[in-house]
């Protein structure tokens, strides 16, 4: 009896989400699955074409390969940098220094700009041929390329933008650091532990749930990055597809070329890719994520 009461409580707390899942999310999700087997131009009714979209994706889409390559490059470089940057600054800004509130705010401001329309213009001021970044390089005697516009480097300006807006990840790390009981550090100090010992024995283990969260979410979000690429490349994914992130290509297919059936098929392929990565993270998490509630 007690057991069923617990079940009921579990589902009761979950109720808002369950209602949302059933009424707001499931039917559009299934609709998109259905559309992935159709030819659907938005303006007229979808036509069932079986696996044609999927077939085209794997055999006859010269841009999809480029797009997947660019997306992986973006994800594999930006995720570690973003996390490292955010964690480093979170630890730095977690000390009992003066003006910390101001500093945190300063470092968060770039994230406030988010997907603002002004970003495209601002980013150009930084990474243009004679932008501030290259002016900095010039002081060191290096002549920088046109970061935004050179197909070899454009993806790095996008990665730069992603790392620049590390604020939200930093905030989550900060909140995680604050959750670590101060007593543990005090006790360790009494035991004569140094900074590095405290970091490796207290900070890191207790922060693993938050690291795990940030890693998973940043990974999912990076695979889906759209706005940044859209704004920086003016919606084109250029030059020569070098910033054609998967979601941007999907959007171009669906909304510009009016091939929503194909875009839906692409979406399901992305879902499978992301799910595979996330699943892998969850599988490994039991070996390195430490939860205070004692369950892993």
């Amino acid at each position, binding site marked *: 009896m007690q057991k069923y009461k617990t079940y009921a409580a579990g589902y009761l*707390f979950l109720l808002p989400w369950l209602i949302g899942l059933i009424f707001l999310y499931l039917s*559009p999700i299934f609709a998109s699955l259905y559309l992935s087997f159709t030819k659907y131009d938005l303006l007229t009714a979808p036509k069932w074409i079986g696996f044609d979209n999927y077939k085209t994706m794997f055999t006859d889409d010269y841009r999809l390969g480029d797009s997947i390559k660019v997306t992986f490059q973006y994800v594999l470089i930006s995720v570690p940098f973003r996390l490292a940057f955010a964690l480093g600054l979170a630890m730095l800004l977690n000390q009992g220094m003066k003006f910390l*509130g101001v500093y945190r705010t300063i470092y968060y401001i770039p994230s*406030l700009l988010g997907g603002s329309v002004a970003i495209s213009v*601002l980013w150009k001021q930084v990474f243009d041929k004679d932008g501030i970044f290259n002016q900095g390089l010039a002081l060191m005697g290096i002549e920088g390329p046109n970061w935004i516009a050179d197909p070899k480097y454009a993806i790095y300006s996008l990665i730069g933008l992603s790392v620049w807006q590390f604020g939200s990840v930093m905030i989550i790390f900060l909140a995680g650091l604050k959750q670590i009981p101060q007593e543990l550090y005090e006790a360790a100090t009494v035991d004569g532990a140094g900074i590095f010992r405290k970091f490796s024995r207290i900070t890191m283990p207790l922060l693993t749930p*938050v690291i795990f969260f940030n890693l998973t979410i940043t990974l*999912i979000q990076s695979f889906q990055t759209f706005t940044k690429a859209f704004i920086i490349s003016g919606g084109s994914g250029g030059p020569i597809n070098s910033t054609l992130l998967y*979601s941007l290509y999907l959007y171009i297919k669906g909304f510009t070329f009016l091939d929503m059936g194909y875009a839906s098929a692409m979406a399901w392929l992305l879902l499978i890719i992301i799910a595979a990565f996330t699943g892998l993270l969850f599988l490994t998490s039991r070996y390195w994520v430490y939860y205070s509630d004692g369950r892993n």
Partner: protein
Amino acid sequence: MVINRQFKSVLFHVIVLGCGLLMLYPVFWLLSASVKPTTEIFTSQGLWPSNFTLDHYSEGWFGLRNIQFGRFFLNSILLCLVAVFGTVLSSSMAAFSFARIDFPLKNILFALMLGTIMLPGHVTLIPQYIMFHKLGWVDSYLPLMTPKFVGDAFFVFLIVQFIRGIPKELDESAKIDGCGWFTLYFRIIMPLSLPALMTAAIFTFMGTWDDFFGQLIYLSDIKKFTVPLGLRLFLDSSGSSNWGAVFAMSVLSIVPSLVIFFIGQKYFTQGIATTGLKG
């Protein structure tokens, strides 16, 4: 020794502040562009405007026919506050359930929840729009607000991770004291996860504030327009854009989030967990 420590501290501030200001260069450029005359914005090099003008601010604020930009601010703030309330409430409830209560299908439901954020939103947009249209909700805030009350997978996951950082012994002792699930949720777990809740609140505020696409699709009446939509009124990439007004209003549009962040950051970095444990 003392000098050394002082020097270190000064060095720390110089480096942190210096790097911070360097990172803010684009923001300074934005500020400077918003007070330059239109013909100078894209043609002059330096940050310092040779002719200082506040025209763009008054153009942006008062320049639209039959409506002031302030209206968009009010709409956005209202929308964001409702979104914050809804998201924090519903996400924390779901997170509490996932983190602390055992029930059948839990892992499957959790995986399903993460699954919902793995599908790119562009392909569910049309079916969702059709659904809201059938409900007669298009051109109201309902399609933008309702989804906030059913929990957001991102924040549920975030709060779950934080709750799992709270020792489970607390629950046990609370139960011995005769606390029900609701009391445990509301009186014990929620206060202890305040940093996570504040984080969720601030992110929701900013995410909603910034959501151009959703607001564009669902809102049509200019009186219901929000700040991102208002900004686009000055911007026509195919023809002439009033960039001055865009920059001026962009500067103003980051102010509410900035204020909220500055106030909020105290709370989510205050080490509430420890004080809670002691008490």
